[in-house]
């Protein structure tokens, strides 16, 4: 009976929402072609002739994420780190012991995992370092990179990771370095404001009509899209180690957590 009810509910919701989308036009009229807003971005993201509006990056999404709508992304990042700080705060007082049994899964699984780790690192780094050229970017790369510590924790053990230096403290400081890097890149234009006296904006990337400050769009002849590559690299660092902290904390066994967080029995 329960299964029948669930199935009916799922089907009814699916049919209703598809009717709403297709016949009812719940998402607005279907539009084939390019909207005028999209046209603006497509014209301007990589436009050397219109330097005051361009982000100097052929990747429209990354340009919007870190340049045109940079502050939105900054606050989004802050929300993500508030969640991680919340997780760390909840696990306060829990000592992550460095020694313990390193049984893990079978030797075959361990060997295959070992081989995959360097490949995982370079694929994630490639996503981060090409974030301003092809689809990808800091968060995507961080999520891909975070898979490595997770499979190590599952296949080997938490102690395997911590003995080799990836402790909670190291991960926390690397994550903070990433966040600090993002903040510094956002504030570098102000250095220009202080030193030269010309107008500059927070999170500015290329020149604006009343501001001559600009991050270098090319380094040694290679396109780096000004500040975008730096944001991507630091976000990559921060997201990777943010996830690592959460998984290090989640892998502590429940009894240890209860002992610390359980408190006294309420009368």
């Amino acid at each position: 009976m329960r299964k029948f009810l669930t199935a009916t509910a799922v089907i009814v919701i699916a049919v209703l929402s598809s009717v709403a989308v297709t016949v009812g036009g719940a998402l607005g009229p279907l539009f084939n072609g390019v909207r005028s807003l999209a046209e603006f971005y497509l014209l301007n993201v990589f436009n050397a002739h219109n330097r005051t509006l361009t982000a100097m990056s052929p990747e429209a999404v990354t340009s919007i994420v870190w340049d045109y709508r940079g502050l939105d992304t900054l606050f989004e990042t802050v929300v993500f780190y508030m969640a991680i700080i919340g997780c760390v705060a909840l696990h306060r007082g829990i000592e992550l012991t460095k020694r313990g049994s390193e049984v893990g899964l079978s030797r075959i699984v361990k060997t295959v995992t070992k081989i995959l780790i360097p490949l995982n690192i370079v694929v994630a780094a490639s996503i981060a370092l090409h974030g301003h050229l092809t689809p990808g970017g800091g968060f995507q790369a961080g999520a891909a990179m975070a898979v490595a510590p997770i499979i190590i924790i599952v296949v080997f053990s938490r102690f395997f990771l911590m003995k080799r230096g990836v402790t909670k403290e190291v991960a926390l400081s690397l994550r903070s370095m990433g966040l600090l890097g993002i903040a510094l890149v956002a504030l570098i234009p102000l250095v220009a404001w202080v030193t030269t006296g010309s107008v500059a904006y927070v999170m500015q990337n290329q020149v604006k009509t009343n501001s001559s400050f600009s991050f270098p769009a090319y380094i040694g002849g290679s396109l780096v899209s000004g500040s975008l590559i730096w944001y991507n690299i630091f976000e990559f660092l921060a997201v990777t180690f943010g996830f690592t902290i959460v998984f290090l904390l989640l892998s502590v066994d429940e009894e240890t957590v209860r002992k610390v967080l359980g408190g006294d029995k309420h009368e």
Partner: protein
Amino acid sequence: MVDLTMVLLAVFAGIALFFAYLAISERNLVRALIYSAVQSSAFAFIFYLLRAPDIVLVYVPISVGIYPAAILFLIRKTKEVEEP
């Protein structure tokens, strides 16, 4: 209007719906989690078909790596079978 993209979208949406139902009705939480991960993978394909490669790149590691791992850790902290 019926082109291959639409057909594939319908197929993957159907797969996602089926596995969503399985995930809801399954009492064993680990199995429910695997169904849910399959559903997320179908969503990743849908994002690809909707031409959002940026979302796909973040959705694949999240849906097949981080999300199941996080929930598995949480299941280990509770019981494996949901009580009625």
